[in-house]
């Protein structure tokens, strides 16, 4: 997919999501990892993305109201 050309940080940015989703091939993963080892700029942004995903998940999860559970149980087929 990518090889580190003249703008490795731009390429690394392209790989951020597939990297965190573990979608990259082994070769691509190794390329991204080698760049991240030496580039604090990209490392920070990868770390941020990881934390952001957790943060968004916590923010948007809303638990089911208990009355709804009872309503659903009432929809069951009577025996």
């Amino acid at each position, binding site marked *: 997919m990518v090889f580190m050309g003249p703008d490795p940080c731009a390429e690394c940015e392209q790989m951020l999501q597939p990297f965190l989703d573990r979608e990259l091939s082994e070769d691509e993963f190794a390329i991204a990892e080698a760049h991240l080892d030496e580039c604090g700029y990209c490392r*920070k942004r990868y770390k941020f993305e990881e934390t952001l995903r957790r943060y968004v998940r916590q923010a948007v999860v809303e638990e*089911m109201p208990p009355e709804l559970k009872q309503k659903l149980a009432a929809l*069951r087929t009577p025996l």
Partner: protein
Amino acid sequence: MSEVQPETDARAIAEEARARVRFEEEVLELADQVYRVARRLVSTREEAEDLVQETYARAFRSWRSYTPGTNLRAWIFRILTNLNIDRGRREQRTPTTQPLEEGDYFLYNRLEADAGSDDERRILERLSQDEIVHALSEVPHDFRDVIVLVDIGDFTYQDAAQILDIPIGTVMSRLHRGRRILKKELAEASVGESA
């Protein structure tokens, strides 16, 4: 032979009733997860409750179409997303325009500049829970459905593809674009606040 038949029938009926009860119990155990996803597919709590009730009413009605031993979670979420798509098409007939998106580093760059810090936790503290909820709701349906299934429902790409009846490549591209759109919305929310 005619004496054996009623007994066999009775046994078959009892067996079917037991299988149905088992099915209903298993599907009810998934209700918390179904609600969490439903809540973010639609705008309001009331809509989410209606959608979940419709989903369960249909699931209980059509339980025979579920093949035991296959992925029950994917089966019930497929009912949920289909019902939601039907409802969405009724309510929102205007075609969704393709929103602009920025690169994956855009949000960090924007927030870092505003926060004057590169600590990711301090940067994230600039976003309130309401802003995040609102930003997600601004992501167009096709993209949001995939984000919600994968990032909140914890489905694999394969399962999300099966649930939404789209190719796995489309799941990936919608997920990647959807997350970028979400980050652009979050950046706009944070800028609005600091302005």
